[in-house]
């Protein structure tokens, strides 16, 4: 006779053990609407022991500056979920945020820097 027992693996064949919408408390949009998929974040040196594993993984990934899109790609999370999770982590002081791409568009100095960078490639 066999019994259905949990083998400790959260990632079952059917998918995640914890549905994604539970992870983000049902939120569907980040509070900070300027959070762009190219916005970069970096982890701050704070105590992370109380974080859920999924959130902890993001903090660990961001030891160096990383964009929302990269976090989503590496952790295989949909973009919207990634944004909400990153937003929660910023709000709670685990991550620091860089300049959102859309606030820098009209800057001639930035375009000069990009041009010089591309020419050096």
């Amino acid at each position, binding site marked *: 006779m066999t019994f259905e027992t949990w083998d400790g693996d959260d990632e079952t064949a059917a998918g995640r053990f914890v549905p994604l919408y539970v992870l983000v408390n049902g939120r569907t949009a980040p509070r900070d609407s300027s959070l*762009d*998929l*190219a*916005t*970069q974040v*970096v982890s701050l040196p704070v105590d992370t022991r109380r974080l859920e594993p999924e959130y902890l993984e993001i903090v660990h990934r961001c030891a160096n*500056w990383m*964009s929302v*899109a*990269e976090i*989503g*790609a*590496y952790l*295989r999370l*949909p*973009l*919207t979920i*990634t944004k909400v999770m990153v937003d929660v982590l910023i709000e709670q002081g685990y991550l*620091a*945020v*860089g*300049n*959102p*791409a*859309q*606030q*820098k*568009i*009209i800057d*001639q100095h*930035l*375009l*000069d*820097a*990009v*041009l*010089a*960078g*591309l*020419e050096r*490639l």
Partner: protein
Amino acid sequence: MDRTSVKIVVAGGFGTGKTTLVASVSEIPPLTTEEVLTEASVGVDDITGVEGKTTTTVALDFGRITISPDVVLYLFGTPGQDRFWFMWDELAQGAVGAIVLVDTRRLEASFPAVDYFERRGLPFVTAVNRFFGECAYTEEEIRGALELDPRVPLVWCDARDRESSKLALITLVRHAMTRLRVKA
């Protein structure tokens, strides 16, 4: 904090070489990020007869180029399917500009992208991908077919070639600078 992201959009019809171009200049192998859409946000999708299908996944390929210690350039390829316009909006928002790749065997595949960036007022350059062999058209013929504004640069490129892709990016940034000066 002083850490700046810059975006460039790489657009064009399905199979015009967007990911190839991103891969040729990116410092990392192109990554794929996915957006999962609910039925409501897909809108134009006809899901009649596909009971139970409530989500669609849109994949975005992207790469990165570190410009300086505090500036990183991200290159985002548009989703293959033209109907995901709202994803284009997010990519175009705040972008320096766009490269529209053109496959001369299917000029019309790049028309929606040209039209989109024109309407949005985002600086863009057209890059005719030579990867597909000898081009049967002259620059004038391509410009005519795509109804290009004479001020929009057109470059010939091979999306597999790093130098060639670099040139397309440089042409775009120069064009964006010109547009900025005109506005100022």
